[in-house]
């Protein structure tokens, strides 16, 4: 907004006298601003738009269900709509191309020549030797590829025009991405539907909840997935920009006997909803929740894996939710249906809204709090609008502020200077750290389930740190580390219980795991072992880096050290497990490892004995009686190498038995700590068939 207006005024200055400036000064609505800068909200390009739309819907759905302590059941469907179908949908007649040269993907005569060249070359070289064939093929192929690339690049550029605010870096990404989209000539449209069993929305609020950017229910200070009430609205803006189609919302609240249905789009210039249809319908099934449907331009091919990863990791961090993900298109073999079943019914507590911590507020915020407070005087204001300020501390603070402050003064009468003074004192004074009570971490149990599901590891350890503070905002870091399972070092990052998939390289978790953990200390080999690292950070304010909720920077030492220590704690747990495992392996392999050296050892001893026996026989040397006896036996072959081997083997067996016994008595019968497992209830009556036996019944569901 701000960046726009000076340019406008400049223009005005040059053309018109100063007076006219006022009339030219333009106001930009928030909706307009976000439409022009949609990359801020993660709508960089069609592919990412599709991804972000899915993501925003899913997160809203989860928040909604959790807010009424309902186990979330979420269905998300992406339906591919090809262009002709889309056109008929909006009542546009498909037109054949008449002037081919008009189009961007038109291949010039020269380019076509190139393609035929390739055919020719190919034909020719089938007859010639293989080596030459290879070399020329690569040459002509690269020609062909450059042609294809050119076409794809053009395509990408076309997409870029739509995503006009995308930065240069993103453009490069886009190009590489479009290479993968071979043979898919034109933009695709998708109908994204998300249905949940959450709170639903009051009938009359629906238009404002969707049709007004920066209006939301999540503005309080608490741990939430979303923050600004942007997500769903951005999807709506994007649909308006790319397809022009409105959004459909159905919603019903608990105990409501009707379903609100609303079809609306957004008046971007005025940032107000534009309602097409708003009616109440029958609610026969007593359904509550919301169903949102939007048609947008997107790119499934390039963001398919990201979207699936997102769903998968979301299922990992919210094992108490049930997700059904569907992708539907005209080509049935591309269709996908994945059900992420619920694995627990333990829902983390709903995060509670908390008051601001004095060290985290700024002047504007203090002013807002003053405007909103119901407390009449300064003392009560300090005491009730902030955490960690009790009455004695409030009095001391007021005393410190200066002579013009008094506990009884009306808080609304504070001047700007006085507010600045309060702010300064808040910055300098010492307060207790905010407690983590208002946070709702994912929980070690959930983390553990997630890791097991994602990586199928041999060993898992989890750790939940205590609450710590960054700029007055409490945060909790939880970590899980696993060994075994999937190859390599796999890192999974979560912030406020949403998965982070982008910008892995710069993230605090990745950097910590790669650079600051000495895995060797924990008997883990970073290059050979399969390591999984899960880190979940929750906070009332996650310090995301850059635009969009993509990664947490590595520059915040409080978070970096908390992440490090959480991972280390897991590693310490793992280490003892690993050591025990190594011991157990040693137990199993001891006999084999000892036995394999028997021949070498006895050979060496016997070789010397043999030589000695020889010189003994020839009377070169004299030996004492016991020794001479052995040598005599060696000479007459009553002691051979075999004798030594047998004796040594006997001894090894005896030792092995003793040590195994010792090991068993020392360690006792050790069991892994038992864990509750969640059994899914089977719905539907189904046909049962019982097999009876004297001790159990085996029930088969048909």
């Amino acid at each position, binding site marked *: 907004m701000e960046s726009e207006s000076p340019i406008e005024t400049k223009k005005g200055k040059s053309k018109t006298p100063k007076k006219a400036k006022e009339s030219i000064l333009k106001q930009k609505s928030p909706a307009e601003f976000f439409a022009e800068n949609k990359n801020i909200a993660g709508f960089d390009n069609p592919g990412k738009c599709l991804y972000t739309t899915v993501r925003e819907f899913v997160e809203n759905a989860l928040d909604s269900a959790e807010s009424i302590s309902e186990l979330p059941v979420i269905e998300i469907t992406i339906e591919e709509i090809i262009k002709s179908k889309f056109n008929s949908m909006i009542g546009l007649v498909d037109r054949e191309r008449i002037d081919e040269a008009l189009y961007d993907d038109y291949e010039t005569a020269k380019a076509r020549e190139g393609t035929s060249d390739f055919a020719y070359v190919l034909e020719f070289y089938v007859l010639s030797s293989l080596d030459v064939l290879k070399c020329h093929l690569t040459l002509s192929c690269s020609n062909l590829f450059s042609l294809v690339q050119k076409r794809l690049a053009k395509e990408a550029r076309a997409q870029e025009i739509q995503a006009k605010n995308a930065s240069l870096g993103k453009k490069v990404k886009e190009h590489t991405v479009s290479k993968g989209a071979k043979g898919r000539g034109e933009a695709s449209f998708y109908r994204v539907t998300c249905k949940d069993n959450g709170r639903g929305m009051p009938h009359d609020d629906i238009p404002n909840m969707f049709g007004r950017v920066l209006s939301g229910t999540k503005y309080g200070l608490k741990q939430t997935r979303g923050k600004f009430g942007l997500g769903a609205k951005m999807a709506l803006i994007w649909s308006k920009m790319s397809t022009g189609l409105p959004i459909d919302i159905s919603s019903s609240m608990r105990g409501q006997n009707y379903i609100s249905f609303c079809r609306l789009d957004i008046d971007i210039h005025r940032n107000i909803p534009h309602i097409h249809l708003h009616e109440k319908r029958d609610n026969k099934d007593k359904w509550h929740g919301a169903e949102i449907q939007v048609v947008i331009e997107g790119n499934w091919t390039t963001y398919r894996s990201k979207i699936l990863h997102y769903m998968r990791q979301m299922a990992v961090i919210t094992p108490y939710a049930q997700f059904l993900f569907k992708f539907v298109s005209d080509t049935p073999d591309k269709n996908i249906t994945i059900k992420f079943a619920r694995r627990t019914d333990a829902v983390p507590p709903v995060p509670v809204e908390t008051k601001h911590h004095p060290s985290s507020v700024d002047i504007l915020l203090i002013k807002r709090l003053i405007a909103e407070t119901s407390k009449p005087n300064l003392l009560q204001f300090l005491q009730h609008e902030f955490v960690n300020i009790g009455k004695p501390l409030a009095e001391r603070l007021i005393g410190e502020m200066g002579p013009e402050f008094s506990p009884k003064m009306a808080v609304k009468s504070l001047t700007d200077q006085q507010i600045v003074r309060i702010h300064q004192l808040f910055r300098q004074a010492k307060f207790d750290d905010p407690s983590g009570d208002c946070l709702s971490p994912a929980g070690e149990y959930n983390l553990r389930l997630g890791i097991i599901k994602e990586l199928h590891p041999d060993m898992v350890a989890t750790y939940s740190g205590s609450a710590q503070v960054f700029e007055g905002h409490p945060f909790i870091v939880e970590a899980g580390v696993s060994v075994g399972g999937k190859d390599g070092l796999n890192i999974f990052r979560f912030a406020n219980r949403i998965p982070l998939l982008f910008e892995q390289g710069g993230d605090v978790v990745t950097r910590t795991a790669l650079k600051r953990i000495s895995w060797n200390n924990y008997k883990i080999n970073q290059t050979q072992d399969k390591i999984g690292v899960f880190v979940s950070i929750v906070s009332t304010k996650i310090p995301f880096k850059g635009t969009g909720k993509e990664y947490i920077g590595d520059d915040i030492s409080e978070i970096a050290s908390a992440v490090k220590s959480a991972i280390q704690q897991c590693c310490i747990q793992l280490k003892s497990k690993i050591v025990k495992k190594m011991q157990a392996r*040693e137990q199993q392999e*001891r006999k084999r*490892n*000892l036995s394999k*050296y028997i021949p*070498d*050892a*006895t*050979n*060496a*001893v016997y*070789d*010397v*004995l043999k*030589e*000695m026996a020889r010189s003994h026989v020839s009377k070169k*040397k004299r*030996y004492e009686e*016991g*020794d001479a006896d*052995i040598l005599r036996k060696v000479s007459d072959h009553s*002691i051979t190498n075999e*004798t*030594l081997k047998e*004796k*040594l083997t*006997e*001894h*090894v067996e*005896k*030792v092995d038995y003793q040590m195994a016994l010792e090991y068993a008595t020392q360690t006792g019968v050790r069991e892994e700590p038992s864990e509750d497992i969640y059994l899914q209830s089977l719905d539907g009556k189904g046909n049962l068939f019982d097999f009876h036996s004297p001790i159990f019944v085996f029930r088969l569901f048909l």
Partner: protein
Amino acid sequence: MADKKKRRRADSDSESASQPFKNLLKSDDQILQILKSFTTCFSSSSTSKPLTLADLALSTTCREVSDLSLSSVQSAIESLVLQLAHQILSGQGFSFTVPSRSSSNQLYVPELDRIVLRDKSTVRPFSHISSVRKTTITSKILSLVHQLCLKNIHVTKRDLFYTDVKLFQDQIQSDAVLDDVSCMLGCTRSSLNVIAAEKGVVVGRLIFSDNGDMIDCTKMGMGGKAIPPNIDRVGDMQSDALFILLVEKDAAYIRLAEDRFYNRFPCIIVTAKGQPDVATRLFLRKMKTELKLPVLALVDSDPYGLKILSVYGCGSKNMSYDSANLTTPDIKWLGIRPSDLDKYKIPEQCRLPMTEQDIKTGKDLLEEDFVKKNPGWVEELNLMVKTRQKAEIQALSSFGFQYLSEVYLPLKLQQQDWL
């Protein structure tokens, strides 16, 4: 010869700008005079018989080995093997009692100025997973050495390793066990008839017999004579040298040998090309004790240079059991010392910053007794750690390749600048 040299020096006066301190040099004759008086006074002072461990009544018992004849090595092995046979036959498995060569079992004896081994031993049972390998290797080495005794031949450590590559896996393991074995039998490693490949070289004013052949080290060409791996072969040492120059590195050695430095100032030049092997140490000791010459050391100005110096002087921890035969006491640190860097204005670009590891090594050295006993060394080492700079001998080449032999060393000798 001297005439020629003088002429050349006169010609090269203009070089003095590029070769600083050259003008400080006195004539060779004067320097020789200084050296001669030093050497005579040195040899007269060092006539007293060196102390042995037995002379000292130390509170802790220490282990020392001695040269044993082949037959006594053989019978030592045989009685050990008979013990093993008894143990095995009685069904108890078997084990070795090996003197520990860990650093906790080492003791620096200031009176002797060398490291000795204490009497702690570890038991190496066959039937334990952590020692089964070493025990097997030990019995294998014993049997191999027994064969050497019977046949009266010498083999190299490499030969020994190749007799059973599968068991030994790499030479480090068989070498370590070999030291254990000599420690266990109480004899020097040479007594086991196992030698290391030739590493050290010697050139200069030395004549000795190698297996009966007379060797004149002034006539060995530029590379000099390889130091015989078997010290028993060496005898009849004669020399008119005034000192022995111990050089850490091959490069500096080649420079000095090619410039025939030993003809300008009669000396014997020795190098082991880095960490010294047993043969070079034995050879140096023999030269020093038989010829009664002072030993001056030219090493890099870094912690490793000093470490190498200490190995020659006080022995290595790995072979402390034989330090009596391996060490050469009273080696003077001639250069390049940390203080020389500024004294000889070695340009910044030739000095290297010390790594963290270097500094740690330097600080560790400061804790070592053999450094502490010499206050001059402590001072130099402190300076090195403080300035965090190191320099190799080659840093002197920044003043010309021959600066080392033509200016630096003569000047050092003239000033008797050693610690």
